């Protein structure tokens, strides 16, 4: 693998493909963000393509001057997909004149916590017990996350632009 990372092209996701993907990943059609449920249609996204093959997707929602990162997902073993997607989101947010990006990771997702911090995000808060609360509303939220760690809290991270 080259040092520069894979030969990826970052492009906006066609709306219908984005909705299709998110519907697959969010089986009950919505997710909870900033105190409200959002559906696939509320979300914007970009994809990392190599030719026509989609290697990853980043999704966000803009509220005021904040870009809320919903998810950064790499679908393949190709390295560097997530990093390229985050870089592209930062560029997009700057072009739109936004003040900051905000991301959340669950307490078990220490890899995600490292990922965002390595890319300039800093930890700004902890929503303690938020998954325990949300599980009352949405019982499909798993109790156990990565590495067998109970999923209970959410770190909040921010990148100021």
């Amino acid at each position, binding site marked *: 693998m080259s040092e520069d990372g894979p030969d990826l092209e970052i492009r906006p996701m066609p709306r219908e493909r984005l909705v299709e993907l998110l519907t697959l990943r969010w089986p009950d059609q919505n997710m909870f963000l900033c105190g409200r449920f959002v559906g696939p249609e509320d979300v914007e996204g970009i994809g990392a393509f190599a030719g026509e093959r989609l290697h990853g997707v980043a999704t966000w929602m803009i509220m005021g001057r904040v870009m809320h990162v919903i998810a950064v997902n790499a679908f393949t073993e190709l390295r560097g997909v997530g990093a390229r997607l985050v870089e592209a989101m930062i560029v997009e947010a700057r072009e739109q004149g936004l003040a900051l990006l905000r991301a959340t990771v669950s*307490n078990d997702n*220490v890899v995600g916590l*490292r990922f965002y*911090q390595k890319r300039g995000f*800093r*930890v700004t*808060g902890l929503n303690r017990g938020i998954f325990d609360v949300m599980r009352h509303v949405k019982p499909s939220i798993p109790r156990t996350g990565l590495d067998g760690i*109970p999923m*209970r809290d959410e770190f909040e991270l921010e990148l100021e632009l």
Partner: protein
Amino acid sequence: MTQERPIFEIRPMTDRASLEELLRLRWSDGTIFVRGRLLAPQDVEALGAYLDGRLQGVATWRIEQGTLYLLTLNNITDRRGVGVALLGAMLDMGRRKGFPFMRAMLSNDNIPALRFYQKRGFRIVAVHSGVVDMMRSLKPSIPEIGFDGIPMRDEIELEIVL
């Protein structure tokens, strides 16, 4: 895969001079903190894990305002199982002393420890955002950059029920 679990002898480190020397060498100039307060190496107690009389790892702790804090937990060799053995000894000690829980402090860059503690029953109780930055203004030798090139800025506080 079978894993050989060496039996470590765990005992308080009584040789203060070598403990303090070790902390200065290993922990960023002896920088240990708890709840935004800098501690000097002489302010902490330590358990050592020994194998054949040789030190393999160190856990440091302190009682701060009635709460038992696990401050650092490290191997000093590449022998596996040292951290788990030291943690077990800290839990035993905390129970013997009658503490209802034990807390641990981490800096935000210390992702391996965040996983280690959570896998072993700790849960996060707080993030003290910017506390390390504040301490650095008092002690400029606190490094800016920690593990994996991540800036060291915050404290993460975890708790385990004893």
